[in-house]
């Protein structure tokens, strides 16, 4: 047979410049939903419904003060969930993430209060502790071969003891350092809040626009300009409302104790989202995380070092948990022996509610934001309605079960489409 095949007069569909109007974007989205990958859509709908419900039942829910509280309340769970998403993407779990944050938080508090270290050293101690813990979990899972559920369950118990030992007599260590306290308790000046807003909106538009330009230059189908403009406009509108609300005076006693501005934790979480999003979506490492989560054998045959990816993922998770522990210590202004014990399930719930699959291979970093918001709204709203902690825990558990059930069903459905 000859080397040259017949000259191709017609170009295959995948090499053609496809139309890329709004209708195509909509059609692509619908195919995605139909294939069982619902992403964050159910969580977004749930969030809107919950906010409307609580605002109706308890008008104080929809006030600037509560709105600002909501961000600081959600931050710890959101950050923890971001770390957990890396582990969940491999289909693994880290039940010790919460107590790891407790260990880091208590090390932070003790190294300042008892050992007299300045805050940068205390933060370094806490972060290094988290990273070392993550490395150990990763090695135990990847090299020794103990299931992550068992490793982290063992650590969940052991670290509760470790926290007791670190904190020592007295049962509670106060955090007094101004910088640490500022993380969860201070706000940006009003003008800086608006600068932050402008950076986010312009940055979002430029990112989408240059991405489109690069694809068009190669002759590929790209997101339509109108779609980019619509998305930017929605982001800008929501952001404007949020920054405006946070810029209002929200103190109950304005003369004595004025309170306004975007909480400092907001840009911190935004930056973290950006960094983790880049790592997962745009780097070789991130691609390999998805590959290992999707099909370990395929990843191994493609030359990916599966154990390295496992170790890295647990290290990222525990490191992030340590940071969540610092934020938690800032919010509570103290660390107690129960630090981090309960929040890990909230964080797993947040990731799963946001659309991350417990079976691995599916999930985005912003799932932590949306899912974390749902968990925080439930927590906050039910607290305002006067429900006890017991009822709140039960409702959060039910929501986690619901999200995990939806995850399992959508997985079943997509594999049904497949074969």
């Amino acid at each position, binding site marked *: 047979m000859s080397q040259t095949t017949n000259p191709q007069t017609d170009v295959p569909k995948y*090499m053609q410049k496809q139309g890329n109007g709004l209708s195509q974007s909509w059609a692509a989205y619908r195919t995605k939903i139909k294939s069982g990958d619902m992403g964050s859509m159910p969580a977004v709908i749930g969030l809107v419904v919950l906010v409307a419900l609580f605002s109706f039942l308890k008008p104080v829910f929809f006030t600037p003060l509560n709105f600002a509280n909501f961000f600081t309340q959600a931050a710890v769970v959101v950050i923890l969930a971001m770390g957990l998403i890396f582990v969940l993407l491999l289909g693994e779990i880290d039940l010790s993430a919460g107590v790891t944050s407790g260990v880091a938080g208590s090390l932070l508090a003790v190294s300042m209060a008892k050992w007299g270290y300045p805050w940068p050293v205390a933060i370094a101690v806490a972060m290094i502790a988290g990273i070392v813990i993550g490395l150990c979990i990763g090695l135990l899972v990847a090299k020794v071969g103990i299931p992550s559920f068992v490793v982290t369950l063992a650590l969940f118990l052991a670290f509760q003891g470790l926290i007791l030992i670190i904190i020592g007599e007295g049962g509670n260590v106060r955090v007094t350092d101004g910088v640490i306290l500022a993380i969860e308790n201070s706000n940006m000046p009003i003008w800086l809040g608006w600068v932050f807003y402008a950076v986010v909106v312009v940055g979002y538009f430029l990112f989408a626009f240059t991405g489109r330009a690069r694809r068009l230059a190669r002759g*590929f189908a790209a997101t339509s300009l109108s779609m980019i403009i619509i998305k930017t406009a929605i982001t800008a509108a929501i952001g404007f409302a949020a920054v405006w609300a946070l810029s209002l005076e929200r103190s109950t006693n304005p003369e004595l104790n004025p309170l306004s501005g975007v909480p400092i934790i907001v840009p911190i979480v935004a930056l973290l989202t950006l960094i983790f999003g880049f790592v997962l979506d*745009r*780097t070789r490492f991130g691609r390999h995380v998805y590959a290992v989560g999707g099909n370990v054998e395929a990843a191994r045959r493609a*030359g990916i070092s599966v154990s390295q990816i496992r170790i890295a993922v647990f290290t990222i998770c525990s490191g992030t948990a340590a940071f969540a522990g610092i934020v938690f210590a800032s919010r509570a202004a103290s660390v107690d022996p129960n630090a981090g014990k309960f929040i890990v399930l909230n964080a797993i719930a947040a990731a799963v509610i946001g659309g991350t699959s417990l079976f691995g291979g599916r999930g985005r970093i912003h799932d932590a934001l949306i899912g974390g918001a749902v968990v925080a709204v439930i927590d906050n709203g039910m607290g305002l309605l006067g429900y006890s902690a017991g009822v709140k825990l039960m409702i959060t558990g039910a929501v986690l079960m619901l999200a995990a059930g939806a995850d399992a069903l959508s997985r079943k459905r997509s594999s049904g*489409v*497949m074969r």
Partner: protein
Amino acid sequence: MTETLQPILEVTGVTKSFGAVDVLQGIDFAVLPGSVTALVGDNGAGKSTLIKGLAGIQPFDGGTITFEGKEVELDDPKIAAALGIEVVYQDLALCDNLDIVQNMFLGRELVNGLALDEAHMESRAGETLQSLSVRTVSSLRQKVSSLSGGQRQTVAIARSVLWNNKVVILDEPTAALGVAQTEQVLNLVRRLADNGLGVVIISHNLQDVFQVADYIYVLYLGTMVTRLRTSETNSGEVVEYITGGRTETSEGV
């Protein structure tokens, strides 16, 4: 041999045993560039063991391997990959949660600094599929989970072409496919050989073998019982060799 072509990959006298069981008892096997070589034999004949040895996954115990005229040691999958020997496995090593481009470049992603160079990967993947006259997929950004068996096999085979491999070994490429899809995949296999690659196909389906292969090697209980030119044999004869009805180690070529 009457061929003027040098084999691109040749093994002589390779052996492999697992404990007391001699799975390969001195096998000779050669792959010519630009042709399709079929490897047939009943279950347990040693086909998989031979393939795993060539892929460097399970090194042979004895014998010599020659690649492009030079003797090589194949004791690591990375060596096989570096030489340009690629195996497309029966259970298709693809990730369902990734799209076609992502799967084709898996483990060998192109980067631009720190970030993945998606546009470059997409255009190269498209060119490769086009060069193989693949027209069964509509978008390169489709998730593999949404593809049919034939489309998946196409992606897996195209991936092996993307990396300028010299020898592509296909393990049962048509086992789970319908009639039309089998036809597409066999055409693709033929095009690989037409592009100058040495192609090895393992199959139980003799109809497929006769349609696509230039040479047929028959393994029987760990020995290579014959080597036939497809044009000079028929399926009855091959079946006799496979089932042990004819056992002389003839040189059919």
